[in-house]
Structures are given as structure tokens and as C-alpha cells.
């Protein structure tokens, strides 16, 4: 008994002393003003290393020392990102700069989440943006996010050896959806599927790559320009749904995706002969499966009519930096973002090289510099994406996620439960229009001038 009391006493003492110890762990800023930037963790550790090094480099520049401030970088695990950021926002202590993906920015900017970057960065930073990127980030004449990099999807990857095996030309991939199905049929064997299709839980955003192809769309992906109406009961979506259904009913694709859409493993290990992926997929192959790199072929994602040249075949995923709406040092933030992403092209060149040219620049001058860069211009995948995909790629939809989710749900009922395509799309259209009404979305498209 006495031992127990003694233990409690010792515990209390330990607690108190530890508290005393930890209490005096003050941060050391040398009297400088810290300007905080938060970035969630990306799968490629090279992104972290690059960003951390650049922050150090910036803190040693004249701009930072004369301004008597320093950039303080914090990486937050993806799992805790939403909680950490929202708690800080609610507390009024959000970081002054956040690294965000493009899709969420436009709607949030209307709600006052960010400061317009144009007030704090030189105009040349924005005129330098690729035209389609500028369109994506320009909300009524203001930019709320400055691009770091772009990752277009979907791109079709395949195994050349598998193509040869069944008598297909290893240098030419399928161009139309029909051809893609046809190829998958030929490539399908007992121990290998024709093609890897995205996992149902990821369909919501993966489908943006396909939806972006719809040229007859009345406006912006599934909705029209002022977001008053959804139209999905069209020929384009019927054929898309039918193509997906054929893949599943004929078992040309695994009934359950073998891996997450982001992972190229099934293709790399030969479980499938073709796979849809994003530009990041090539990075995984270079890093984890270098021995099969020469066996990997890639083409523009097949389209409805087989015309792939000069067509939009991909959505632009990717990340950039934004200044918080309550930031106390927006000037300094602008200075840093301009230095890092908007100024010297060498910074981003180094980044692209670190990442094995699996991510792409959003600025004309960086593209140009990479064009003159021996390493980059010798990389066939880099050239392929910059020439055939990136110029025509389209921003991800800005509307609420719920719309994309409902679309994916409808597709899942077709592929998994064998529902009729026509009826499903009719119901979906009704559902989406109800949603638009319930959420009062009409006229809220931030891009609609």
C-alpha cells in the first residue's frame, strides 16, 4: 500500500518536473518575425526535402534578413491535415501560407479564405502562367493560389511486351474508347487482366479526367456555366458508362481494383496489361521498378471518337500556395511565394529534376527553361506530356465534391450492380438538379463572369 502511494507521489513529481521542463521550450527566432507556412505531406519525400531546403535558402536571402522575418515551415501529416488546419482557422491562428490543391480554392476564395495574391506579387508572375493555368487560377481578375506544380491525369500506360505478345504494335496504343475495350479483350488472359480501371472509392475524382473530354458539355464538366442545371443524360456520358460497364461485365478489368488508382503496382507487376494513371505514375516506375521502364508505353487517354491530337484528355491536378485571409504579414508571404515559385526558374527546374520529371511546371518561362535543359528535353515522358497533354488539359471542377460523388455512385451501380445505363443517367440527372436546388448553387460559379 505504501509503495502504491509512493508510486503515485513519484508520478506526481515526475509530472510536475516534466511540465516545468517542457514549459520552457520556447522557439528561437532571433527576434525575427516568424511567417508560418503549412504543407501536408506528399508521397514523394523529395517534395519535402526540396521545400525545406528552399525555405532555408530564402531565410538566408537579403529580402528576409532585411525584412527581419523568417519563414517557418511545418509539415502536417495528411491524416491530421483537415483537423489541424480547421482548428487553427477557427482559433484565428491559421498559418499565413498554406499549400493547397487547386480544386478547393475557387469556392473557398469566395468565402474570404485567402487574400488576392495580385496585391502582393508582381504582375509578371501572373502573365507568365500558362494560359490554361491562368484560367484555372483567375477568379474574377484575382489569383488566390499560385501554382507550384501540375499533375495531369488520366494517361494510359501499358506494357509493350504484352502488346507484342498478342500481336499489337507496341508503339501505338488505343485511341478511342472502343479501341481501348478491344485492346483489353485481346490482352486479357487467365493470369492477367486487360486493363486496370480506377477503384470505386476514387472514381469521384478520377472520372474528372474522362469528364474533361466532353466537348459538347454545356459549360463546366457536369454543370452549365452558371451552375443552374446539370446535364449528364447525354450521348457522351452514356458511352462512357457503357465503356466502363463492358470492362466489368466482360471481366477485362479486376472486379475489385488491385491497388489504389495512384499506384502503378498492378501494371508494374504484370497483373494488368494497361492501366490508367497520372503523370506521377512514371515517377513510381522510375523509383520502384526501374528495370521495366523501357517496357512501359504511354499514350494520351483514349477519347470517345478516337481523335486525340489537340484534344483535352486530362484534368489538371496539382498544388500551389495561398495566403490566408487573416494573414498578418501578407507582404512577406507574397515576397516568399514570388521568390520560390514566381521568380528564378532554376528553383522549379531543380524541383522537376528531383521528382524525375513526373510533375509539370505551370509557367511559360519554366517550360522554356526546361526545353533548354538537356536532362528534361531528353526525357521522353516529359516531352510527351508537355506536348500532347498539358497544353489542352483542363482545370478540375470547382463545384462541390458531392456532385462528383453522386456521379461516381451512379457509375458504380452500373458496373457493380448491372443497372441500366439510360435509366441510371436519367435518375442521376434528376438527383444532381435536386442537389443544385437544395444547395442553392445557381449563380455561384466563381469563374462565371
Amino acid at each position, binding site marked *: *500500500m505504501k509503495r*502504491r*502511494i509512493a*508510486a*503515485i507521489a513519484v*508520478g*506526481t513529481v*515526475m*509530472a510536475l518536473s*516534466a*511540465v516545468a*521542463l*517542457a*514549459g520552457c*521550450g520556447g*522557439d528561437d527566432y532571433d527576434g525575427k518575425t516568424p511567417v508560418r507556412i503549412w504543407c501536408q*505531406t*506528399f*508521397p514523394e*519525400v523529395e517534395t*519535402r*526535402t526540396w521545400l*525545406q531546403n528552399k525555405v532555408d535558402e530564402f531565410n538566408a536571402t537579403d529580402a528576409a534578413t532585411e525584412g527581419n522575418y523568417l519563414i517557418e515551415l*511545418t*509539415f*502536417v*501529416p*495528411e*491524416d*491530421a491535415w483537415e*483537423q*489541424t488546419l*480547421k*482548428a*487553427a482557422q*477557427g*482559433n484565428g*491562428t491559421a498559418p499565413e501560407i498554406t499549400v493547397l490543391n487547386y480544386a478547393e480554392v475557387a469556392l473557398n476564395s469566395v468565402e474570404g479564405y485567402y487574400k488576392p495574391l495580385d496585391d502582393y506579387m508582381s504582375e509578371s508572375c501572373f502573365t507568365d502562367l500558362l494560359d490554361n493555368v491562368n484560367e484555372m487560377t483567375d477568379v474574377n481578375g484575382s489569383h488566390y493560389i499560385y501554382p507550384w506544380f501540375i499533375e495531369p491525369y488520366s494517361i494510359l500506360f501499358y506494357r509493350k511486351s504484352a502488346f507484342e505478345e498478342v500481336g499489337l504494335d507496341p508503339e501505338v496504343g488505343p485511341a478511342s474508347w472502343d479501341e481501348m475495350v478491344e485492346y483489353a479483350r485481346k490482352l486479357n488472359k487467365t493470369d492477367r487482366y486487360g486493363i486496370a480501371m480506377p477503384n470505386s472509392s476514387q472514381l469521384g475524382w478520377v472520372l474528372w479526367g474522362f469528364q474533361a473530354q466532353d466537348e459538347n458539355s454545356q459549360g463546366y464538366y457536369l454543370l452549365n456555366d452558371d451552375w443552374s442545371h446539370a446535364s449528364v443524360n447525354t450521348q457522351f456520358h452514356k458511352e462512357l458508362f457503357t465503356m466502363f460497364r463492358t470492362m466489368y461485365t466482360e471481366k477485362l478489368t479486376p472486379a475489385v481494383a*488491385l*491497388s*489504389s488508382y*495512384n*499506384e502503378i*503496382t*498492378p501494371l*508494374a*507487376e504484370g*497483373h494488368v496489361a494497361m492501366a490508367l494513371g497520372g503523370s*506521377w505514375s512514371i515517377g*513510381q516506375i522510375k523509383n*520502384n*521498378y526501374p528495370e521495366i521502364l523501357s517496357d512501359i508505353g504511354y499514350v494520351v487517354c483514349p477519347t470517345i471518337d478516337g481523335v486525340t491530337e489537340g484534344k483535352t484528355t486530362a484534368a489538371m491536378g496539382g498544388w500551389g500556395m495561398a495566403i490566408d485571409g487573416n494573414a498578418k504579414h501578407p507582404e512577406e508571404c507574397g515576397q516568399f511565394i514570388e521568390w520560390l515559385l514566381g521568380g528564378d526558374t532554376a528553383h522549379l527546374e531543380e524541383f522537376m529534376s528531383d521528382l524525375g520529371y513526373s510533375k509539370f511546371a505551370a509557367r511559360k518561362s519554366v517550360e522554356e527553361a526546361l526545353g533548354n535543359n538537356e536532362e528534361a528535353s531528353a526525357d521522353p515522358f516529359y516531352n510527351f506530356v508537355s506536348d500532347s497533354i498539358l497544353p489542352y488539359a483542363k482545370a478540375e471542377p470547382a463545384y462541390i465534391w458531392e456532385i462528383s460523388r453522386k456521379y461516381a455512385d451512379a457509375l458504380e451501380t452500373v458496373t457493380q450492380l448491372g443497372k441500366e445505363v439510360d435509366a441510371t443517367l436519367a435518375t442521376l440527372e434528376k438527383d444532381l438538379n435536386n442537389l443544385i436546388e437544395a444547395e442553392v448553387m445557381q449563380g455561384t460559379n466563381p469563374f462565371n463572369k
Partner: protein
Amino acid sequence: MQRVKTVNKAVVMRAVGTALMWLVGIILLVCSVFPFLWVVISSFKPLAEIQSITFHFFPKQWTAENYANLFAGNSVYFPRGVSFVRSLGMTFLVSVIALVLSLAVNSLAAYAFARLEFPGKKLLWAMYAVNMFVPSIATLIPCYYVVSKLNMLNNLLVLILPGVTYVWSIFFYRQYYLGMPRSLEEAALMDGCSRFGIYVRIFLPMSVTPFIIMGMSVFQGFWNSYIWPSMTVHGNANLYQVNQLIAYFRNSQGTAWDMLLASTVITCIPLVVILMLMQKYIMQGIKITGIK
């Protein structure tokens, strides 16, 4: 003659029963150990092999590189200035302090609810009990607001104090105490022992089993927490918790499974050791509580 037969039958029956129990026991062992063993063995595989879709139990190529990376001082995965080893130590310290406080604070409350009569008992118990049903996400952001107003961010206290009062353990101890016979304390009361004295002399010694069972899970709760530490102590490299670091390996776009499994194995070791040390005291519980 007949008697011998029945005895034989009984012996056979008992032998069959024992054999059956052993069989079930072994199946249990396999079911619970096999996946755990898979984690341990896979932690010696390179990433491509772990991600491989074809199931291999043993690695084609054993590697300790995952562990080496984990303990390397300048791991690229972790925020600067954070070391895995130090965070192991810090997490242990936090969990131990929190555990001791949790046992003391919650069992005292449970004793009051189980054994003492006072005005407002029902109301207070309702106030406590309601918290068992509130999803943690409801209070996550307001709680952050509170600790920030108390100036506790990036401080050891923020890792410990918010989790100390744990109504589930009060409920657990209370259920335990409710089951204890009143005859013991009545005798002690006759002898002039105070109510608090009864808690210390009778209830605490009888709490070994519930303390170990609940203690394991409380300790584990602190040991495994990562969302709360990620929110509150990311500004202090000394305070990073070990599962907060493990979260840096995870990503919906591609998890570093090699590092994740290796670190999972390392963080499980202290828990397994504690478990092995403690399991025999669960037995000892009988000797003490067996007085009744």
C-alpha cells in the same frame, strides 16, 4: 467392473475435452499471431515487395534498411529536429504520467459514484455519462480553442491533461466497485476508518485487475494518439509523439509501407513487454479479491 468402465469413460471424456480445448487454443493462437507475425516479417521487406499483389509470407530478400532509415538521425520523412528515438522516450513519458493520473483521478471518481451518497449524485453522473456517447470529432476543434486560450499549445501538458478524465474508465471501475461486497467496508467503518481510508485500504488493493486491464488500454490510447498531438505540439520538436511521426509515412496517394510497418513493430515492442509483465497480475487479482 461397471465402475471401472464409467471411470474410464470419464477419463476419456476429460482427455477429449482437454484435447479439444488445446486445439481451440492453438487455433486462437494462430489466428491472433499470424497477421501480427506477417507485420513483423514484412517489415524486413523492401517497399515493392510489401506492395506486391501476390501474397508472399517471407521476403525474397531480407533487408534491415527500413529500420536503419527509421533510426537515422536525419530521416527525410520527419520534420526537422525530430528524432524517432527521442519521440519514443517522450511518448513513453507522456503515457506513463497520463496513465498514473488517469488511474488515480478516474478510480477516485468511480469510488464516489459507486459507494458514496451525496446530493446531486444523479445529476453529476448524468453529466459524466453523457460524454461517453459524444463522438470525439464534436469536441476536437473547441478543445483546441480551449487549450490555446489556456496557453498550453506546444507544451507537455496539452498531451496529457485533456485525456486524463476518461469517463469510460470511470464507468468501468464503477461497475467493478459495484460488484464488491459491502461487508468489507462496513467492518472497516466500524473500526473508525474514514471513507477515503476505505478507498485507499480496501478499494485500491482490490483494483489490480481492473487497473491493469483499463490501464493497458489507457496507456495504449496515449501511446497511439496522433491527431491531437499533430494539432497541438507541431511547433515543439521535443514533444513529437511516436505515432504522430508514423502518420508522416501515410498518404492517400501512396503510403511508405516499408517505413510504416517497421515503425509499427518498434512501437509495439514496449506494449508487448508491458503486456507480458502484467499478464500474471491479472491472475493475482484473484488472490486479493478472492477474500470475499
